C-alpha cells in the first residue's frame, strides 16, 4: 500500500493536534448529526450499483445499498450483508450465511430470495464486469431465508469471488424489481431502495442528490450523519472553489484538476490523499495495434518504452501520487502483486534509437522514421498530458505522432470496434482481482466491440494458457504464482504496456472524520463517518 496505514494516520493526526486546531485525536467521540456535502462530477443515468459498476454509481448508490462483503482496513474481505461463508474444496459451490434482522428502506425484510434474484437477473445478466465474473454461475439455491448457495459450472476461486462480491456484490430488493417490469427502466434505478445507512430523498438532475439517515439501520447507533448531499459540479475549477468556500467537504476519485489537488493539499484546512482509494488503482496504458506492421515488431514496442522518460513525466506533470508502473497488476494488489517487481524498461534514448535502426526503420527526411496515429481517451487530464508527452518523446527518436482527438463514443468505437488506431492511451482500472478487470486486456479472442479488452489483433497462446489456468485455480498460492508468470509475460510482450501506476486522489475537508478508513472508502457506506464542528 502506498499511503500510510490507518493507525499511522491516526498517530500522525493525534500528534498534529498539538500544533493544529484541525487535527483529530484518536480518542475523539463521534458526533451525531450534520450533512456531508460531496462533489459529484459525472451525472449518472442510474444509481443502482447492482446494475452498473462504476465509481460514479458507487459514490452515491453505495450509501443506500449494501454489498455482500466489504473490505476491512487492511483490505481483506469482511462481512456486510453476508455474515459468513464456506466453500466446497472443488470451488464449485459457495454458501453464504446472510445477516438477520436487516430490512429494506420500505420496511420489507432482507432475505436470500433478494440475493438469488439480484445474482441471477442483475449480476449475471446486466452488471458490467459482473456478467464476466458470474459467467459460469449456474444457480443460487435458497434452502432457507438466510442462506444463499452459489453453484458454478466451473471452479470459482474463493478469493476471486469474495473480492468480486464487494464492488460487484450489491444486493437489490426482489419485491421492488420483480413486479416492476423491465429491470432497466425500474424507477428504483434512480431512487434506490436499499438496506444501507442512508435513504434516498431526491435527485435533481444537474443540481444535487440528497439522502437522509436511515433510522432503522442494522448497525446500532449508526450512521452518525443526518444527511448526505451530492452536489453536481462538472467544472473542476468550480468544484475546487466550492471546497475552499466549505460548500463541498469531500471530492472523490481525482475529480479536481491536478493543480488544484496539489494546491488544496498544501492548505491546512484540507487533506489530499490516496488513502481510502487503494482498492481503486489504475494504470495509464499505451495500447499497440498489431495490425500496423511497425508496431507488431517487439523491437519497436520496446524502443517506444525506452524513449519515454516516465520518472520525468511523473515528477513534472503528475506530482507525488503517481509512480512508475511495474506491469498490469498494481502494487496495491496485496494478494497478487509479484514480489520484487520493478519497472522493466528504463529511459534510454540511445537504446531506443538502436532498436529502431535494427528493426529496419532508418531516419528519413527531416529525421523521421515513420508516422503513427495516437488516440488518447477523452477523459482524465493526465491522459491528455501523457499523450502530448508521448508525442514529444517519440519525436526525439524519429517517430512522428499525430494525436487524434475523439469524444468518448468515437474513441471507444474507433479503437475497440473498428480497430482504426495505431497507438491508444487511456486507463486500465484494476478491480480488486486480475480476473475481474485485467486479464481481459491480454486474453485473445475477445469479441469485437467490447471496450477495454484485447483489441490489438494479436494472439499469444502462452499468455492465454496462464490466464485460463489462473481463472479457475482454487489454491491461492498457485494462483499467485500464475499471476506472477502473467505479469512477466505481459511485460515481455508489451501488448499493451502499462507504464504508470496511479491511485485515485480524494480531497477531504479535515472536518470529515473516519474518512478513508478502508481501501474502498469512497465507494463504501459511510456508516461510521462523522463531522467535527466547523
Amino acid at each position, binding site marked *: 500500500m502506498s499511503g500510510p496505514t490507518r493507525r499511522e494516520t491516526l498517530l500522525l493526526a493525534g500528534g498534529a493536534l498539538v500544533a493544529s486546531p484541525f487535527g483529530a485525536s484518536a480518542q475523539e467521540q463521534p458526533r451525531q448529526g450534520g*450533512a456531508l*456535502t460531496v462533489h459529484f462530477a*459525472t*451525472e*449518472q*443515468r*442510474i444509481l443502482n450499483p447492482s446494475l*452498473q*459498476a*462504476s*465509481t*460514479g454509481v458507487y459514490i452515491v448508490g453505495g450509501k443506500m445499498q449494501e454489498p455482500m462483503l466489504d473490505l476491512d482496513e487492511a483490505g481483506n474481505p469482511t462481512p456486510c450483508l453476508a455474515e459468513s461463508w464456506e466453500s466446497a474444496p472443488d470451488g464449485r459451490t459457495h454458501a453464504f450465511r446472510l445477516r438477520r434482522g436487516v430490512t429494506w428502506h420500505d420496511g420489507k425484510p432482507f432475505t436470500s430470495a433478494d440475493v438469488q434474484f439480484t445474482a441471477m437477473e442483475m449480476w449475471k445478466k*446486466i452488471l*458490467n*464486469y459482473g*456478467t*464476466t465474473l458470474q459467467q459460469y454461475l449456474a444457480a443460487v439455491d435458497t434452502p432457507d431465508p438466510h442462506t444463499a448457495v452459489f453453484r458454478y459450472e466451473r471452479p470459482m476461486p474463493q478469493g476471486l469471488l469474495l473480492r468480486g462480491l464487494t464492488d460487484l456484490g450489491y444486493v437489490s430488493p426482489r419485491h421492488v424489481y420483480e413486479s416492476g417490469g423491465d429491470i*432497466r*427502466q425500474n424507477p428504483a*434505478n*434512480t431512487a434506490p431502495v436499499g438496506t444501507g445507512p442512508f435513504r434516498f430523498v431526491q435527485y*435533481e*438532475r*444537474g*443540481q*444535487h442528490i440528497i439522502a437522509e439517515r436511515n433510522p432503522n439501520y442494522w448497525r446500532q447507533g449508526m450512521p452518525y450523519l443526518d444527511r448526505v*448531499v451530492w*452536489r*453536481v*459540479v*462538472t*467544472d473542476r*475549477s*468550480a468544484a475546487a*472553489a*466550492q471546497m475552499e468556500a466549505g*460548500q463541498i467537504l469531500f471530492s472523490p476519485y481525482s475529480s479536481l484538476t491536478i493543480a488544484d489537488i496539489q494546491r488544496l493539499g498544501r492548505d491546512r484546512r484540507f487533506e489530499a490523499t490516496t488513502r481510502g482509494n487503494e482498492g481503486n488503482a489504475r494504470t495509464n496504458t499505451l495500447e499497440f495495434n498489431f495490425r500496423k506492421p511497425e508496431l507488431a515488431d517487439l523491437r519497436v514496442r520496446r524502443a517506444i518504452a525506452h524513449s519515454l522518460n516516465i520518472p520525468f513525466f511523473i515528477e513534472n506533470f503528475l506530482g507525488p501520487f503517481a509512480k512508475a508502473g511495474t506491469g498490469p497488476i498494481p502494487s496495491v494488489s496485496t494478494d497478487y502483486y509479484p514480489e520484487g517487481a520493478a519497472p522493466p524498461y528504463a529511459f534510454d534514448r540511445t537504446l531506443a534509437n538502436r532498436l529502431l535502426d535494427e528493426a529496419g526503420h532508418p531516419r528519413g527526411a527531416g529525421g523521421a522514421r515513420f508516422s503513427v496515429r495516437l488516440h488518447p481517451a477523452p*477523459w482524465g487530464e493526465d491522459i491528455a498530458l501523457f499523450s502530448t508527452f508521448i508525442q514529444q518523446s517519440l519525436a526525439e527518436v524519429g517517430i512522428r505522432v499525430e494525436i487524434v482527438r*475523439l*469524444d*468518448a*463514443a*468515437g*474513441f*471507444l*468505437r*474507433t479503437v475497440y*470496434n*473498428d480497430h482504426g488506431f495505431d497507438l491508444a492511451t487511456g486507463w486500465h*482500472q484494476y478491480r480488486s482481482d486480475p480476473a475481474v478487470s485485467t486479464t481481459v486486456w491480454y486474453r485473445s479472442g*475477445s*469479441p*469485437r*466491440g*467490447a*471496450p*477495454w*479488452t484485447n483489441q490489438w489483433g494479436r494472439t499469444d497462446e502462452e499468455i492465454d494458457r496462464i490466464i485460463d489456468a489462473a481463472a479457475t485455480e482454487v489454491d491461492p498460492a498457485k494462483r499467485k504464482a500464475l499471476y506472477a508468470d502473467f505479469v512477466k509475460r505481459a511485460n515481455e510482450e508489451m501488448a499493451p504496456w502499462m507504464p504508470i501506476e496511479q491511485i485515485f486522489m480524494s480531497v477531504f475537508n479535515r472536518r470529515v472524520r473516519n474518512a478513508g478508513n478502508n481501501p474502498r472508502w469512497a465507494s463504501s457506506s459511510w456508516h461510521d463517518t462523522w463531522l467535527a464542528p466547523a
Partner: protein
Amino acid sequence: MRVLPLALRRLAASIPTLLLILAGLFLLLQLAPGDTVDALMGQMGGGDAALAAELRRYYGLDLPVMARLGDYLWRLVRLDLGFSAIYGKPVATVILERLPATLLLMTASLSFAFAAGMGLGVLAARRVNRWPDTLISTLGLVFYATPSFWFGLMAIVVFSVHLQWLPAGGFGDVAMGYEGWEAALDIAWHLVLPTLTLGLIFLAIYLRIMRASMLEVLSLDFVRTARAKGLTETRVVARHVLRNALLPMVTLIGLQAGTMLGGSVVVESVFALPGLGRLAYESVVQRDLNTLLGIVFVSALLVIAVNFLVDLLYARLDPRILSGR
C-alpha cells in the same frame, strides 16, 4: 388583434424548415463514429460485447436508419420527443429541467445588452466624434473582438479568485437550502458574470446599431421639425428618435435568438450552468439523438416565438408596418 391565427400561420410556414433540420441532423449524426451505447459503455466503465449488443437491441439501434427516422418523425407528429438513453427519462422532462437556466441567462443577457447598448449608443450619438463617442465606440469594438469564453475566464480570475466578490460558477447554492426571495437573489448573484459574458458581444452590436440609427434619425425631417417647434432635446430623443431607432434593434433580437443558444454552449460550460446549451453539447458527445433533436426542436420553436413577438412589437412601434403588409 388577430394574434392567434397569425401565430399559427407562422408556425405552419416554418414546418418544412423544421423538418429539414431534424431529418438532416438525424442523418448527420448517423455518420458519427460510435453510438449512444458506446457512450453508455464508457459511462459505465466497461462491459462485454454481448451486453453492448443487448443494449443496442433495447434502444432500437439495430433497426435500419430510415425506419428509425420515420419512427422519430411519426412520434414527433404526436408531440412525443422520445426517451433519452443517457438520462434514462423522457426527453421532454430532461429539457424542461434545463430550460429555466438557459431562458434566464438569455433574457438577462439580452436585457442587459439591450439596455446598456441603448444607453451607450444614445450617449455616443449625442456626442458624435467627441471623446465620449470615441471612448464608447472603441469599447464597443474591443467588446466585439473579445472571445466570450476568454472574457468569462478572466472575469472568474478577477472577480471570483482574487476579489472574491462573485461566485465562479454554478446555478445557485443548493446546500444553503435557500427559499423564496433568498433563492432568487442567490441565483441572480450566480448569474451576474455569465450574463455579462454572454451579453458582451450583443452589447457591442446593439451599441453600434443604436448609435448609427440615432445619427440617421436625428438628420430626418420630422426631428428637425420637432426641434424647430421648440421641443427640448431630451423630449425629441425620447419621443421620436428612440422610437424609430428601436426598430432595427428589435429586428436584431429576432435574428439573434438562435445564435445566442450557440453562444450559451460555451458560456454555460465556462460557468458550469445546467442549461440547454451544455445539454446540447453533451448530447452530441453522447450521441443522444433524441435529446439533441428535442433541443433543436424546442429552440427552433423558441426562435419562431421570439420572432413572432418581435413582429408584434414592431407593429406597436411603427403602426405603418402592419398595415403595409
